[in-house]
């Protein structure tokens, strides 16, 4: 555990080379899964567990993605990351974008993989599927190219780990309930992002459909958009090697 700005963070570090700060999805970090190893073949991966998820501590006063953005900017300073790659998926992509509109001094590349955080449609449009208004099985169908890849057997998991999952679900709700999983102002400031940016999307993502990738690309100066086949909302989870390859090609 590392205390950053008074917040106790559980951080995984893996690999050598250019630093890569990996910000995980609403589903959590799952550091035993292959994506961190795939990234660690090319980068020094620094992967914090967000406050509230897993063993990281959510302070009473913390309740917005702004807080997380400042916290991770403080973490980058604390670890003296330089010329680093900032990568975020899903909820972590939202946090990464909020960081990048504020301060990119410690980063030279940004990768947003199916980020939440911005809504481009109108009053009645749901750009981001209502994950809390659908049965878990229905959410899985939207989130995964193959839901079996994301299946977790909680009945066999130690209770301390389940506790981390349950706390994470509550924290995800805390940060993203209303407005639902986005900050209405964020899209107005995406033009401030001043480092090369890669927007990545799983071709079969139906939590946030791939068409929104183009909206993000167009909102960030000079950004490029690429897709990953046979992957849904968590491309690093379903296609860890393709995910790492794309990032290495962009920032290696």
């Amino acid at each position, binding site marked *: 555990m590392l205390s950053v700005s008074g917040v106790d963070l559980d951080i995984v570090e893996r690999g050598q080379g250019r630093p890569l700060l990996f910000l995980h999805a609403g589903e959590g970090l799952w550091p035993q899964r292959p994506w961190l190893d795939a990234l660690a073949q090319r980068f020094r991966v620094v992967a914090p567990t967000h406050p509230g998820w897993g063993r990281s501590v959510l302070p009473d006063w913390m309740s917005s993605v702004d807080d997380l953005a400042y916290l991770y900017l403080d973490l980058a300073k604390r670890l003296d990351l330089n010329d680093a790659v900032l990568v975020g998926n899903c909820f972590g992509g939202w946090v990464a974008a909020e960081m990048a509109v504020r301060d990119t001094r410690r980063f030279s590349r940004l990768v947003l993989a199916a980020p939440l955080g911005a809504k481009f449609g109108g009053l009645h449009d749901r750009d981001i599927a209502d994950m*809390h208004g659908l*049965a878990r099985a229905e959410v899985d169908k939207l989130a995964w190219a193959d839901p079996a890849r994301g299946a977790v057997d909680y*009945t066999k998991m130690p209770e301390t780990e389940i*506790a981390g999952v349950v*706390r994470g679900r509550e*924290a*995800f*709700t805390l940060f993203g*309930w*209303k407005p639902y999983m986005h900050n209405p102002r964020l899209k107005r400031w995406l033009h401030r992002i001043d480092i090369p940016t890669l927007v990545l999307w799983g071709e079969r993502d139906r939590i946030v459909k791939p068409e929104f990738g183009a909206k993000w690309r167009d909102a960030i100066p000079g950004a490029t958009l690429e897709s990953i086949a046979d992957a849904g909302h968590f491309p690093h989870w379903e296609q860890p090697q393709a995910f790492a390859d794309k990032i290495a090609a962009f920032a290696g």
Partner: protein
Amino acid sequence: MRVWYFSEMAYHPAWDEGLKRGSLRVVLPSGNVDPGVAHGLLNRYLDEFALCDEVGLDIMINEHHSTATCMTISAPMALAVIARETKKARLLSLGSPIANRPDPVRVAEEMAWLDVLCGGRLEMGLVKGAPYEIAPANSNPARLMRRYWEAHDLIIKAMSTTDGPFNWEGEFFHYRNVNIWPRPIQQPTPPVWMTGLSPETGRLAAERGHVVGTLLSGGVAKPMYDAYRQRAQELGWTAGPDRFAYAVCIGVGNTRAEGLRRADLIAGYVRTAGVVAEPFTNPPGYNSLGANIAMLKAGPGRGGFVKDRAGNPVDQTKATVEQFLETDTVFAGTPDDVVRQITDFNQRMGGVGHLLFFGQGGFLDHKDTADNIRLFAREVFPRIQHLNADKPASSRRPVAAE
């Protein structure tokens, strides 16, 4: 023992459609309501509440949203009508779902206004609300209870402050001039009630001295009452039966068969109330960490929370009235039967001062409902009124906020 009649003012004509779709709440489209039929039902239900005043019972109103099980969408609105139609009954709002309300000062105003209107007959429930109330209100289920307690403290301070305005800049609510008019007749506030299902709620209610109510399962109620009594004892006061309430379906008949038939129809509420689309049953943060761990650990297809006295889980969506008798979900039969059941229940619980008499659950028609109310009031109520006369009263008055 006081008895408070209540019904949820069901829109049962849509129940079949809701059951077919797997949810009577949140996602059942309102096209399934015929407003003309609802007009007749609401007025009929209000007549039934008015009857309770004539026969000497108190009255309770609750509220739910976006559901065919309950058309009362505002406890204070319903009570405003009932206040004008009644003279003696105390009026219990159980209650305002204050963690789902954006404006707690408005809740304080409504309750104070009602207390003034009805001449100080109001009792005021400040409730967490059921999990499926989160979606209609779109309130954040994370930190729900922190928001609840801030709203609770603000409402009580707003009602009991006479030299305002005061400033309130909290975690969730911000006002710079709180000063409600009129203020309630009952000072510092009308009696405050909470609802719950857990020993933790029992302890928290004991710390404020509030009345705590629960429903439909003696097995769930007892640990909560015990936790309350113990916490009160730790804090140096004795909690009497007047701090405990229990909601139960009651069917009384001139014959046992008639009482059982009425109870069976009233229990239709219990069979439908829990039929809710899955994602709305457990929004993250609503239930405790421990409860959620247990649910994930148990895997899909876990049993319901209600068990009979032998410890067997009971499926509330399908249970017979006989099974419901075993879980204290229903009291039913002749007046003698029901007096015996209530006496026995009261004994097992260690004294419950408030019986919340669920007397209409959808398909029980007006004649049966009115006969049930009259028979209960005439033949049962006089024989249970003094049940707890031997027990010490609470040694602490309900308190206002510090």
